[in-house]
């Protein structure tokens, strides 16, 4: 028999579909992958090392740059960890502002994922539609804190800036607009035969291996495990709102797609309620000493970022700087399952599966 030549292909570090500097060495037999080895670390900036010489407030901008698609949730997890350690009471208005920006950020992040995922699959228009909607959110953030990507919005004890006049109304108007657009997206993409054929049954894993690999977020919920930290281990004021945790059971790329798509809708529901209950006035910062020295001890807080469980582990020695700061980066953990999923798949599916996991390389490399 004719043996086809085995091909060793370096996908990345510079490749259109790795969404950053990520390299994966694949052995190909024809177009079928026989072995895949991810190589990461090209974007490693040593955030955790840098943090050991910075005060807690100074660390916050570094978190912006980890998962740069969802900077608000990163801001929050660090502040939340310090606040837990200090046992701080956060003013109501600040909590609402935090929650609103986090949910807006979740929508923005999922929109980026949705657009780029379809770009990976070869449809280019959805990308521009998604970015149009994301632009509205980014503009709202811009009004709020003067930044469009790396916000540095939250502080230990609250938020830095109060909502400008009319800002809440903008969020209120955004909700029905986004709902309408989601219907359009559904018509354009979710029922497209080519799209379904590309994602259904691709990159399937079961709940068992999802748990074993420590997957979180949509990657976990697509296998039927109903676990969302906003519901199961509530933080901030999520327990006051009524929303569902979308779950799919198939565990393939399509299930992950549906989960994320539904999450946008659920975030809109949360936003709708939050905007209604938004306190008229009040403080946006708790009473926090100028130099933050959390008590000696250890804390691990985790919240539901758009990509899954982002955690922050602080070891404090009652100094202004953390003794050790460790982030559990969901992209880093979620990416581990990739080699297992890729074996036996084609080159085309590599892109589909990698996109389906939804990684941000800034976060993978820390």
């Amino acid at each position: 028999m004719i043996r086809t030549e085995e091909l060793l292909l370096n996908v990345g570090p510079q490749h259109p579909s790795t969404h950053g500097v990520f390299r994966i060495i694949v052995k190909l037999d024809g177009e079928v992958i026989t072995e895949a080895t991810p190589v990461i670390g090209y974007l490693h900036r040593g955030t955790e090392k840098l943090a050991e010489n910075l005060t807690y407030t100074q660390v916050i901008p570094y978190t912006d740059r980890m998962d740069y698609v969802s900077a608000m949730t990163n801001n929050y997890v660090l502040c939340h960890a310090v606040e837990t350690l200090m046992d701080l009471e956060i003013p109501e208005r600040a909590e609402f502002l935090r929650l609103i920006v986090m949910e807006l950020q979740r929508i923005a992040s999922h929109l980026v994922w949705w657009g780029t995922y379809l770009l990976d699959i070869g449809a280019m228009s959805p990308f521009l539609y998604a970015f149009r909607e994301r632009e509205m959110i980014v503009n709202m953030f811009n009004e709020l804190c003067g930044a469009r990507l790396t916000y540095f919005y939250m502080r230990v004890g609250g938020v830095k800036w109060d909502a400008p006049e009319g800002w809440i109304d903008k969020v209120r108007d955004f909700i029905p607009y986004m709902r309408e657009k989601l219907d359009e997206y559904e018509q354009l993409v979710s029922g497209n035969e080519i799209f379904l054929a590309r994602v259904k049954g691709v990159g399937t894993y079961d709940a068992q291996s999802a748990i074993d690999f420590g997957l979180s977020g949509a990657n976990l919920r697509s296998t039927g495990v109903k676990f969302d930290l906003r519901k199961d281990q509530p933080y901030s004021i999520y327990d006051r709102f009524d929303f569902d945790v979308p779950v799919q059971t198939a565990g393939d790329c399509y299930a992950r797609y549906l989960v994320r798509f539904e999450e946008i809708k659920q975030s809109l529901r949360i936003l709708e309620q939050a905007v209604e209950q938004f306190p008229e006035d009040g403080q946006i910062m708790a009473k926090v000493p100028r130099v933050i020295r959390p008590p000696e001890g250890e804390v691990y807080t985790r919240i539901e970022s758009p990509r899954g469980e982002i955690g922050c582990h602080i070891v404090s020695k009652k100094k202004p700087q953390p003794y050790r700061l460790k982030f559990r980066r969901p992209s880093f953990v979620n990416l581990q399952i990739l080699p297992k999923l890729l074996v036996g798949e084609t080159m085309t599916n590599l892109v589909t599966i990698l996109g389906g996991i939804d990684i941000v390389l800034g976060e993978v490399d820390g």
Partner: protein
Amino acid sequence: MNLLQDLTFSSFMWFLSGAVVLLAVVLGFVTYAIYFERKVIGWIQLRKGPNRVGPLGLFQTVADVLKLLLKEDTIPRNADRFLFILAPVIAFVPAFVVLATIPYTSLLQFADLNVGLLYYFALSSISTIGILLGGWASNNKYSLLGGMRSAAQMISYEVPLVMSVVGVVLLSGSLSLNTIVEGQAGGFWQWNILPQFVGFIIFIIAAVSELNRTPFDLPEAESELVAGYHVEYSGFRFAFFMLAEYVYVYAIAALTTVLFLGGWHSPLPFLDFIPAIVWFILKFLSIVFFLFWIRATLPRIRVDHLMSLGWKVLLPLALVNIFVTTIVIELIKYFK
């Protein structure tokens, strides 16, 4: 008509000048097809499209081509130099040559070959060799994969493409494109698209695939293979590949018009006062628009789905179409 009848010096010069004019027309078409494509896709995607170079951005493509021509021409060190240089030529020349037999109107045609249809398919298959060689000669794994994909795709879709037009050939009883158009005179109900609707659908799908355009743009799938077979090409060699691609858009749109949409004939007899060439151009442009439209709408199909669609759906359908067409034609003959 014999292809070589009266091959004298004057007829040769006539052919040559005709070819030069055609080349100019085709280049003009390609320039504005690219502009038109970018505009259409821009509108679909809520963007403006090119609007900076010249009025309404009309000179955008000209500027792009100039840029490509002025660019440094690079040849990878480990590439197969000879084939690397040859490949864009092999890809482009057939693309241009196939245009010779397209009848624009009953008078405007360069060569009325009695096997015009066969001529088209035969020569267009040579372009694949160019793409394949370009992919191989670059000595790049992505381009090799792109080349392999394009070879597999072209071979698989050439078969249903040819099979889908057999119905048309049966109806008109000729392989000559001119005769095929003549057979569709007298209003849109005479056009081949109606009796050969299945054939038309198969033809369009296979044609888009032959063009390597979305949703069948696997050989150059930028999100998987970076740019596929032309990863390593730059400057005017790259321009040649692009040119070949758009000339095929031109050729396929013209061929579809000729085979299925009645060529230069008007859809309703009382509209005959409008010049034939206008009808041809209108139909031709609507096909071109259709190609751009689906590019902005559809995701890319997967390789294995592509293969099974070609072999398991399109080919059997085309065969059934031929079978049914034959029976119907014979029945009509019998009852007449």
